[in-house]
């Protein structure tokens, strides 16, 4: 318990540090959205228009950095992330709220499926070395060394195109209204197949390989020999003794990978123009949309920290040696 409280305190501190950095970094970067609008219009904007734009974006107040920082925290605690510049006047929280479900749905589900499938295959491959699963390893390792987005491009080139079942971009058929009905859900599923398959193919082999290697390591432990000598069933030895112990590093790896769901597959979303958070971040960077960028970074930071905490808790639950009595 004490250990857990220490961890929580540590993560709270880290969150504070991350949020503070998140506040300062964009303000230290030269240029602002008004500047970028001016340059986009090649200076054909009148001084009045510039002034009104500054007011519009809230850049007119000449508060110092500290006052802004305090105000930022005040807003943050109210869940107010400011207004997006690109989607003006939509608030950032709304923009994020609209795109987060897409990312969590696509990447979250594929991460979980890839972990479960990869770990199960790894258990099989490690327990029976030299079986057919071992034959798959070189192929999966090859696929995992290919970046997601490139695999995505290949997938689009091969499977998408006019008349193909697989759409090459978007999250659903244009013209449909997002809702849980018989038109929207199948369309969303259809649009998610290619990006999901891309992520699955390239992320699964990592789980297979690490689980297999841990199984092989654990299989030579003395307590496995003892378990065999005890006359336990093969299944019980494989699952309760070998896999149970081999799982530990994979579980913490999994908890960490949950943290990267939000920001980790930016390129896949860009390749497939998928309406998720990564795609949004890409657009925000392009248009110097600070509030949106900050908002997304905040979400990524928090999810990574929460995932770390989850990894700690999972380890605490799975490995009694880490528990201090």
């Amino acid at each position: 318990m004490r250990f857990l409280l220490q961890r929580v305190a540590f993560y709270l501190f880290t969150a504070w540090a991350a949020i503070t950095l998140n506040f300062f970094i964009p303000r230290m970067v030269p240029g602002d959205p008004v500047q970028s609008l001016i340059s986009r219009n090649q200076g054909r904007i009148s001084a009045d228009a510039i002034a009104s734009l500054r007011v519009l974006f809230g850049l007119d107040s000449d508060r110092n950095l500290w006052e802004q920082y305090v105000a930022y925290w005040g807003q943050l605690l109210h869940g107010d992330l400011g207004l997006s510049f690109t989607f003006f006047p939509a608030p950032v929280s709304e923009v994020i709220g609209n795109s987060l479900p897409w990312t969590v749905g696509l990447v979250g589900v594929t991460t979980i499926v890839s972990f479960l499938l990869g770990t199960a295959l790894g258990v099989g491959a490690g327990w029976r070395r030299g079986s057919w699963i071992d034959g798959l390893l070189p192929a999966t390792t090859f696929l995992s060394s290919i970046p997601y987005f490139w695999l995505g491009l290949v997938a689009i080139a091969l499977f998408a195109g006019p008349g193909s079942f697989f759409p090459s971009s978007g999250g659903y058929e244009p013209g449909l209204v997002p809702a849980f009905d018989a038109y929207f859900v199948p369309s969303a599923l259809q649009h998610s197949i290619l990006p999901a398959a891309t992520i699955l193919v390239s992320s699964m082999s990592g789980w297979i390989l690490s689980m297999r290697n841990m199984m092989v390591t654990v299989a030579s432990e003395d307590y496995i020999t003892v378990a065999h000598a005890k006359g336990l069933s093969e299944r019980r030895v494989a699952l309760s003794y070998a896999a149970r112990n081999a799982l530990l590093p994979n579980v913490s790896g999994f908890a960490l990978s949950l943290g990267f769901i939000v920001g980790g597959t930016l390129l896949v979303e860009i390749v497939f123009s998928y309406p998720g958070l990564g795609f949004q971040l890409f657009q925000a960077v392009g248009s110097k949309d600070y509030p949106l960028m900050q908002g997304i970074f905040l979400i990524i930071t928090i999810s990574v920290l929460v995932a770390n905490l989850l990894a700690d808790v999972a380890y605490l639950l799975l490995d009694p040696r880490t528990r201090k009595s």
Partner: protein
Amino acid sequence: MSDKVLEIRGLRVDYGVGAEAVHAVRDVDLTLHRGEVLGLAGESGSGKSTLAYGLTRLLPPPGVVSGGQVIYHPVDGPPVDVLTLSPARLREFRWAETSIVFQGAMNSLNPVHKVSTQLLDVIRAHEPKSTAAGRLARARDLLRLVGIAADRLDSYPHQLSGGMRQRVMIAMALALEPQVVIMDEPTTALDVVMQRQILGQLAELRERLGFAVLFITHDLSLLVEFSDRIAIMYGGRIVEEAPAARLYREPLHPYTEGLLHSFPALRGPRRELTGIPGSPPDLRAMPSGCAFHPRCPKAFDPCDERLPVLGAPGVDDPTRAVACWLHPAVAPLPR
């Protein structure tokens, strides 16, 4: 001679197959009688542990049993050859008839399961009809048997000391009241005081429960005290076998003599410690004839050419056997 419980006949264990195979155990014959402690001693690499793993079919690859028989005589029922049991029958046989206490006292328990889980699962696997309450009561009794408080059932292995862990392993080995307990250097990782305690306890338990022990160690002094009979292994073969006291007082094989002179006597007059010159043979290139001849101070003509067979050295003495040209066999090995 008392009842046999485990007979090893011509057991051969190789590492690897074909011409490259290393023969770690060569034509070993050994008989364990009901309720006795048979000590098996030898240097590192003499094949002691390989023999134990081979006869229980727990050899990790590339180890293979390439010949021989391991006959187990159940209390009731016909004898069975352990080496030919089907996987399902082998699982039933394991632990219920022959349990093992392994070398690694520290690593024999799974670190992520409680002591109770590991003690109960073996009972459940072999006695599926037992009730949970019955199993728990049994586990408590077992811990008490080896002098550990029953509330330690809820401990994890890392919360126990090395000595306690090994005692838990002994309790576990006795869980199904097997006829044979194989102990592979059970106290090697423990300090001397703990060794004494555990061995004393073990002797007591054996008196009470009457199981036979195959005790494997490199520590001959321990065996002299603790076992009824001792077999000495060298280069994968048994080179001498005799009642413990006789082996201690009048060893026949020069190797046994060397081993006995490698440690100080616990009682009696002081002797000079000599040790054995040279090093154990390379299993990939065994010397011709008697494997010990290059290190033997008494080697003579036939030693480097012909292999001495294990047999009784005198007609009047069927209880001991030796494989040495100094004491040529006059009778085949008593079975």
